[in-house]
C-alpha cells in the first residue's frame, strides 16, 4: 500500500467502519450471546471499538502499527470478559508485525500472529465453536492466496472473508467446547457462535475499507450479510 499517511488514513477508516458496524450489530450479537453465553458480546464489542475510534486525535501523528497497537490496548481496557484479551491482546501482540508498514507480506504476518495469539490464549481449536472456527479458514485462505496463488491483497481478503463466513456457518450445528457456552453441553447445538460472527463482521469491514483504499471492487462467492441475516 501507499505512503504512511495513506496507511494511517486507511487504519482509521477501518476502525471507524468496524465501530459503526458493531454498533449496528450490537443487539444481534447480544442476542446470539444470550442463547449460549452471558449476553454481553454486542455491547462489549461496541463499547471497545467505539472507545478506540474516539482516540482519533491521538492517532494523527502515529505510525500505522502504533495505531493498531493502541486499538488493542484500548480494547483490553474496555471490552471486558474473555473478548478483551482475545481481541485486544491479540491485536496488540500482532501489531508488531506491521512495524514496516502495511503490505501484502506484513498483513499475512499480522493475520498469522493474531490467530496464533488467539489460539494460544483461548486454547480453542477448529470445532470448539469459537471465533477460531472463522479465523483459521480465513487466515489460511489469506496466506495461501497471497503466497501460493499470487493474488492481489484485495482478492485474497475477499476470499478470506468468504472462508470466515463458511466458518461462522460451521459453528451452528456443533457443540461448544470452550467458554461459557461449553457449560451448556448439548444445549449449545443449533446456535451460531457470537465470537465467530463478530470476527466475520470485523473482517467484512476490513474488506470494505480495503476496497476503498486499494481501488476497486471484488466479486465475492457469497455475501455474508445474507448468510447471517436475522428475522426482522
Amino acid at each position, binding site marked *: 500500500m501507499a505512503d504512511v499517511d495513506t496507511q494511517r488514513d486507511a487504519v482509521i477508516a477501518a476502525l471507524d467502519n468496524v465501530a459503526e458496524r458493531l454498533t449496528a450489530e450490537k443487539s444481534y450479537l447480544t442476542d446470539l450471546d444470550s442463547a449460549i453465553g*452471558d449476553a454481553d458480546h454486542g455491547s462489549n464489542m461496541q463499547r471497545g471499538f467505539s472507545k478506540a475510534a474516539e482516540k482519533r486525535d491521538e492517532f494523527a501523528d502515529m505510525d500505522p502499527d502504533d495505531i493498531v497497537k493502541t486499538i488493542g490496548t484500548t480494547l483490553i481496557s474496555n471490552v471486558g470478559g*474473555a473478548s478483551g*484479551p482475545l481481541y485486544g491482546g491479540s491485536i496488540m501482540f500482532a501489531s508488531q508485525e506491521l512495524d514496516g508498514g502495511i503490505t501484502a507480506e506484513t498483513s499475512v504476518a499480522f493475520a498469522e500472529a493474531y490467530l496464533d495469539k488467539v489460539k494460544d490464549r483461548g486454547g480453542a481449536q477448529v470445532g470448539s465453536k469459537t471465533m477460531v472456527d472463522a479465523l483459521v479458514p480465513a487466515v489460511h485462505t489469506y496466506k495461501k492466496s497471497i503466497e501460493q496463488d499470487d493474488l492481489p491483497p484485495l482478492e485474497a481478503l475477499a476470499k478470506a472473508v468468504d472462508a470466515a463466513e463458511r466458518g461462522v456457518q460451521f459453528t451452528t450445528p456443533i457443540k461448544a467446547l470452550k*467458554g*461459557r457456552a461449553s457449560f451448556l453441553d448439548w444445549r449449545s447445538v443449533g446456535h451460531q457462535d457470537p465470537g465467530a460472527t463478530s470476527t466475520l463482521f470485523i473482517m467484512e469491514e476490513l474488506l470494505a475499507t480495503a476496497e476503498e483504499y486499494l481501488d476497486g471492487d471484488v466479486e465475492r462467492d457469497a455475501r455474508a450479510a445474507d448468510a447471517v441475516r436475522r428475522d426482522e
Partner: protein
Amino acid sequence: MIGLVVVSHSAKAAEGIADVAAQMGGGNARIVPAGGEDGGIGTSPDTIREAIEEADDGDGVVVLVDLGSAVMNTELAIEMATDVNAAIADAPILEGTLNAAVETTSKKATLQSVVERAEEAREYRKLN
C-alpha cells in the same frame, strides 16, 4: 513473602475467599481480592494487574482464578505488570487459596511451592 491474588467474576466471591484464606494464613498472608468488572460480574485485566502489583513485595505473586475470562485476563495482567514475578495456580479457587495462604506463611515458601500447594487442592475429596 509471596503474595496472593484472588480473581473471581464476583467481587463478593473474591473478597469472601480472601477473608476465609486470611484466617487460615494466621492473618499474616498477603491476599488481595480482584473481582468483578465495573461493579458487575466479570473480570478486568487492569483490576487484576493493580492487585498483582499491590500483592507483590518483591518475592512474587501467585494468582488463584475462577474460570474463563478470569484465566485469560490474568495471563494478560501478568504480562502487563511490571517487574512482578507472578504465576497462575491451576486449582479450585477456594480450596487452592486456603492451601496457598498456609504455604505463604512458611519461611521456606517459594513461588513454585505456593503454586504446588495450591494445586494439591485439586485432589481434595469432600466425601470420602
